């Protein structure tokens, strides 16, 4: 018989060649797995490192501290302290006041300036500073006539110099800054007139123009995102839960409900940009809603989030054991009462977890918002809801995109900083979801 012959050497203590090879293959295969996981972990680490490394700088900004005497003759020629009248003085007027204050401050600190270098020194200050001073004075006209401590943004290049983005060598080739200016900046820093401080305006302030990276902030974007999340939450949670209850508890199994199910599974996988096209065509062109408005963004994101919420809600409804339903039906509750009194409360933690995760996805979504006009440059804060839903606003991820499209390299830092803010929000949302799940989830 040519039956498989047992191997000749058959002491279990001696692995034969074939077994040794097989074990080597086993170790190789295991190694591939370790390598794959290492690559993924390295990619994650590198990604987070890139963002943190580039972005943390955005939260600290170079400020110049000067004493500015607010000259009444310049700022309030009428002498009435009437705000409407004072509005006639433009930022150029305030710029001159700042320049005067700057010269005095430098003289006091013993930094020599002549006529030609005054211009250079003044250019170290952000172009945004006069507008900031003007706003401060208009908000409080009584300041006029006093000398105030004014903390102005340094220009983006000076900020970059202290953060290592700009060097003497690069300044040589740069029309916006010269090595001489940087030398003055060094001197000012040594005298304590210039330094890095935490910059609340980055988080709370509005965006600024392409030429003033130092003043660009995320305030409008954060509010826009918050408005959209509010809309998404208010619309998608009830809609999603209602749809899930119907599909899971009431829907008969027929071709129609089958179609709805396939449809929902598909919607969850439709590229997000297609939802943007939908928003543009239906909400803006057809329904006539305004462009760049949180309401449109909120509606589009609601439609995108709905499948996620429906899928997770149905899973939580399904996990409530039938014995609970039987018990309620057994004491004579109607099906509706059974669901609303017993099943839904038990499924609630799972539903909320799924909703938060859906919201977190929506918060990071960018592509559809580009198409509904949220790329527009918006400096004005939207009004409070509900009118504010129709005002133009930006959104955090779109703001990141906007920053990346600007030429000044200082905006890379801003974009990364904006991502840090976005990731912090996501982290908080996911943490809440995890806590909810840990605390309330039941295992049946």
């Amino acid at each position, binding site marked *: 018989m040519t039956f498989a012959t047992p191997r000749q050497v058959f002491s279990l203590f001696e692995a034969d060649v074939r077994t040794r090879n*097989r*074990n080597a*293959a*086993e170790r190789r295969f*295991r190694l*591939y*797995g370790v390598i*794959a*996981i290492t*690559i*993924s*972990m390295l990619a*994650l680490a*590198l*990604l987070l490192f*890139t963002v943190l490394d580039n972005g943390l700088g955005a939260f600290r900004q170079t400020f110049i501290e000067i004493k500015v005497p607010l000259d009444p003759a310049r700022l309030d020629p009428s002498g009435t302290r009437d705000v409407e009248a004072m509005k006639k003085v433009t930022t150029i007027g305030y710029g001159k006041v700042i320049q005067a204050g700057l010269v005095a401050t430098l003289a006091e600190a013993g930094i020599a300036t002549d006529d030609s270098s005054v211009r250079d020194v003044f250019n170290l200050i952000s172009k945004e500073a006069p507008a900031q001073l003007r706003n401060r004075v208009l908000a409080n006209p009584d300041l006029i006539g006093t000398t105030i401590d004014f903390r102005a943004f340094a220009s983006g290049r000076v900020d970059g110099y202290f953060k290592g983005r700009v060097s003497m060598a690069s300044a040589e080739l740069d029309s916006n800054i010269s090595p001489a200016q940087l030398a003055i900046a060094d001197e000012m820093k040594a005298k304590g007139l210039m330094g890095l401080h935490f910059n609340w305006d980055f988080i709370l302030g509005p965006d600024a123009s392409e030429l003033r990276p130092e003043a660009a902030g995320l305030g409008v974007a954060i509010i826009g995102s918050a408005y959209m999340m509010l809309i998404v939450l208010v619309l998608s949670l009830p*809609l*999603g839960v*209602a*749809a899930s209850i*119907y*599909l899971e508890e*009431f*829907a008969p199994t027929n071709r129609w409900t089958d*179609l709805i199910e*396939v449809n*929902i*599974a*598909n*919607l969850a*996988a*439709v*590229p997000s*940009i*297609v*939802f*943007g*096209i*939908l928003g543009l*065509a239906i909400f803006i062109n*057809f329904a006539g809603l305004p462009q760049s408005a949180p309401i449109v963004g909120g509606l589009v994101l609601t*439609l995108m989030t*709905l499948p996620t919420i429906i899928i997770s809600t149905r899973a939580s409804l399904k996990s409530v054991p039938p014995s609970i339903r039987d018990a309620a039906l057994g004491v004579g509750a*109607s099906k509706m009462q059974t669901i609303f009194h017993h099943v839904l409360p038990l499924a609630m933690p799972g539903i909320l977890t799924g909703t938060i995760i859906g919201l*977190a*996805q929506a*918060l990071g*979504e*960018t*592509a559809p918002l*580009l*198409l509904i006009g949220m790329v527009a440059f918006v400096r004005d804060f939207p009004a409070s809801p509900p009118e504010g839903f129709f005002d133009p606003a930006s959104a955090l*991820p779109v703001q*990141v*995109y906007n920053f*990346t499209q600007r030429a000044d390299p200082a905006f*890379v830092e801003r974009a*990364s900083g904006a*991502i840090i803010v*976005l990731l912090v929000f996501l982290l908080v949302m996911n943490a809440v979801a995890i806590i909810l799940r840990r605390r309330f989830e039941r295992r049946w």
Partner: protein
Amino acid sequence: MSVGLLLLIVIAVAALGYGLGRRRALASVQGDLRRLHSLPGYYGQSVFILTAAPALLVMLAWLLIQPLVIENHVISTIAPGSIADGSSTSLVLSDVRRMAGGLDALVARSSLSEGDIAALDANSTDVRGRLAEVGVALASDVDPAVFETAKAYRLILRTALLIMTTVVVAVTLAGLFFSLSRIRPDYRARNVSERAVIALLIASSFVAVMTTVGIVCSLVFETWHFFRLYSPEGFFFSTVWNPQFRGGSDLGIWPLVWGTLYVSFIALLVSVPIGLLAAIYLAEYASKTVRAVVKPAIEILAGIPTIVYGLFALITVGPFLRDYFAAPLGIGSSSSSVMTAGLVMGIMLIPFVSSLSDDIINAVPQSMRDGSFGLGATQSETVKQVILPAALPGIVGAILLAASRAIGETMIVVLGAGAAAKLSLNPFEAMTTITVKIVSQLTGDTEFGSPETLVAFALGLTLFVFTLALNVVALYVVRKYREQYE
């Protein structure tokens, strides 16, 4: 009276109806609850529903139909002469709307009375200046005839609103009295209320269907517009993509399809082996502690928004590939390239592939593993020869879903792949994809009605069809696979 106020009134009346209904039900049995068919709250609810629902439906229908009717009427009154060169009826109409809105705002700020408006004449007053006061900026000076139309439009709107208010209030009250009159002890209030809730639930599940219908309709409708302006042959069979501001563009889809497929291919080349091996390691080899650390970490990768990956491609991966690979080898000088976008997208897809595969591998029953180990197979032999073949359909489904993701991904390619439409094999060259061009054509400055803008919808439709096909096949395969082990 505004629509919002009317809405509040309807809700308030219905809420009042809730209280009345409840009380009436209790009164009808002299407070003896046992003789009622349903709990008193349900009688209240039935009144609430019968009061609010018809009124709200009437209101909704009215608000949907009214603009169509009124605007048709307004269009018919606009003299053809009022439409300037380079303008269109719809542009004039939107001017009319904005002027009417501006007049309302002027009245609201009480700088004008109704009488003033009737007397206002575009020839003698600086209407443009007055409207600018309230933030309505008009592109050109106001044509007196159009301004008259705007005034008329405003009056029609006011009348229509008045009629609607009357009708809605009437329907609300009718509903209230009708439903109150029906309350008797044996009235099945709970059934009424539950039927209404079911209707609400069904309507909610319709939203998902309506979304798909909306997507398909908007894509098909605008694509049809596009093909009236631009030949389908030029779109489907041309290999040149070169949009021009002044018309005469070449809008061939092939360079975009090529870029899309090339980037997706590289992304899958990265993500499928890594994701699959990671999933196998986690499912078959990893100790509990390793799993507890690595799995959430990979899930973090999945939770990071794509814009973050885009920035990663733009500021880290792109320059790195250019400086250390493409430039020294002399095969490319651009930091955005197919390789950049593909690599980063591959990283993004790792968790997608791995978590789906993990689920699928775990669905293979333990008895398969036992059978194989019992025969003396090593773990890797078991994985390769028993588990993977058993899980293959599911894994193929997962890969198809990942491919669909890759094709539809936007931000990574917008920031990482470049904007040049090219048919090239060199992965270190910048190329562009369908999604990039959808974004650039729809956020550009071209006029909406031009083929250069409308082409985005044709691209969107192509993308939708592509991904839909992949999704349907993938979902079908995965579903079949799941059933096999249930």
